[in-house]
């Protein structure tokens, strides 16, 4: 508990300290399009400026496809100047998967459905080659033999690589997650809820991705407010992936990730304290299509929490809308980070009667709102959740 209080101070000092500046925000073309249209921004603005001809959009290291052998994945790439040329999809070891031009829109954002051969269970890298260009991502495909119900999920948040010795602690966290399978079942996948790079810098993000690539399970990554710092969102769109929002399936479990955007504490919103400026209207419109009352059991995840004991929540512009979207009987859990302290709330925002350390959540209280503490605060930590059709539980693991 003392730790949580220390964290609160940390949020006050680092999360809201000097305030953000305009260049921490999404670039104007992306804001005009809407955050959900980030691939279009990448195609129209970022790739021409950077002289990039091909970007692999999905699946990627931070937005993997988890499938059984023989099932189909949707491969997405962006190639504005090569859109009419056929693509070759392969594993990163050269194993051929498919050829085809795919279906491309006017911005050169292309899709191709690929059936997965009878691979052995494990993680695989994928490459797309178009017009002599090639783009690859490690650990983009996870082949499983079965979809577990409930799924065992590792929830990690707030790496803040670049802040003091966060990189070392985060490396220990990754090693600890990888070691889970030595003493019990290997988790099915991980979810990282933002703030990879403390200052949004390329080298910080590179260290983060290097560590993430060490994980022996697939991981889904969304941005945090610090990932927007210092124009860092451009780097994130190229290094982590151009999709800021994602919808994925793990068997019958739907995963919905959203970038909750930069903090609103830009000097023009004096009543907010480290609240987000998102999700924006483009994201809320999309969310309404995937967080429907008849959707399968769902986990939603983003950086800023909806419920928080004191401050630092989803911004006032979209909080009520997002809260309504995730408050469905079929939403099992809402995972977030940002406040650097563990928090647990039920659907109504009541935290009483739920332990911060470990608990099983009765179905009447679903969705569980679980806020993971900062992974990279020594000695480091992460949460393990079991989420499925009829079970939701959680446990915080602190490294020794």
């Amino acid at each position, binding site marked *: 508990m003392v730790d949580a209080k220390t964290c609160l101070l940390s949020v006050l000092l680092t999360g809201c300290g000097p305030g953000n500046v305009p260049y921490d925000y999404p670039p104007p073309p992306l804001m005009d399009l809407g955050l959900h249209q980030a691939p279009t921004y990448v195609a129209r603005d970022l790739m021409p400026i950077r002289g990039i001809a091909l970007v692999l959009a999905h699946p990627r290291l931070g937005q993997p496809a988890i499938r059984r052998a023989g099932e189909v994945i949707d491969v997405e790439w962006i190639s504005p100047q090569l859109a009419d040329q056929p693509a070759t999809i392969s594993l990163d070891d050269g194993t051929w998967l498919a050829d085809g031009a795919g279906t491309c829109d006017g911005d050169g954002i292309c899709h191709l459905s690929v059936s997965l051969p009878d691979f052995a269970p494990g993680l695989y890298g994928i490459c797309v080659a178009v017009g002599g260009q090639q783009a690859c991502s490690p650990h983009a495909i996870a082949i499983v033999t079965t979809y577990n119900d409930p799924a065992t999920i590792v929830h990690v948040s707030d790496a803040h690589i670049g802040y003091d010795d966060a990189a070392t602690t985060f490396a220990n966290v990754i090693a600890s997650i990888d070691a889970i399978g030595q003493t019990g079942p290997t988790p099915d996948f991980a979810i990282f809820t933002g703030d990879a790079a403390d200052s949004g810098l390329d080298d910080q993000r590179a260290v983060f991705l290097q560590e993430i690539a060490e994980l022996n399970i697939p991981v889904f990554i969304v941005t945090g407010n610090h990932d927007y710092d210092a124009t860092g969102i451009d780097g994130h769109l190229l290094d982590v992936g151009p999709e800021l929002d994602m919808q994925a399936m793990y068997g019958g479990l739907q995963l919905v990730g959203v970038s909750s955007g930069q903090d609103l504490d830009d000097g023009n919103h004096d009543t907010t304290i480290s609240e987000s400026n998102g999700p924006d209207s483009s994201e809320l419109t999309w969310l309404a299509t995937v967080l429907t009352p008849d959707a399968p059991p769902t986990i939603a995840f983003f950086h800023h929490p909806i419920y928080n*004991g*004191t401050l630092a929540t989803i911004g006032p512009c979209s909080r009520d809308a997002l809260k309504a979207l995730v408050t469905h009987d079929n939403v099992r859990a809402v995972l977030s980070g940002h406040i650097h302290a563990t928090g647990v709330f*039920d659907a*109504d925002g*009541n935290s009483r009667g739920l332990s911060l350390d470990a608990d099983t959540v*009765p179905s009447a209280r679903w969705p569980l709102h679980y806020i993971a503490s900062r992974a990279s605060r020594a000695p480091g930590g992460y949460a393990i959740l079991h989420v499925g059709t009829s079970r939701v539980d959680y446990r915080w693991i602190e490294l020794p």
Partner: protein
Amino acid sequence: MLASARASADPPLAAQLGGATGIGYASLAGAYRDDNFVAVRASVGIGPYVAADLRLGEDLDRVEPALGLGARLRPWQGECWLARFSPYVRGEVAVVGASHLGSNYDLTLGAGHWGHFTPRVRWLGWYAEVDAIARVGEVQTWSAHVELGVTFATGSFWR
């Protein structure tokens, strides 16, 4: 007489430090064992029967600060009862960071005893309370708490 004159010259102030726990109920959660709390209360005596309280509380199990304004009313003056047993009723309105900053309020009604461990040591006392708390706003719960604590008071407080 001299003692009484000295006491009346002091400002009627008191500080209290206490801990509380109890049970709660919410529509989704049902009945549950509530958290543990600590509270600091600064009080100003208004005559022999009333005290105004400013209370700062914190949940020991999670980050959930509370800032409350309240009042206590005792129907008997100490000397008319027993100096070390002084019952009172109290009410309080507190803003609580339960699910969102400023989105919740705790409305408290309670009853308690306030008194001295010994009549010879007027500055040190104790209190015990039973409170019923309705949380309104985004989170709606009912709670019943027992709070115990010590109190430090000037000689003129609730004389």
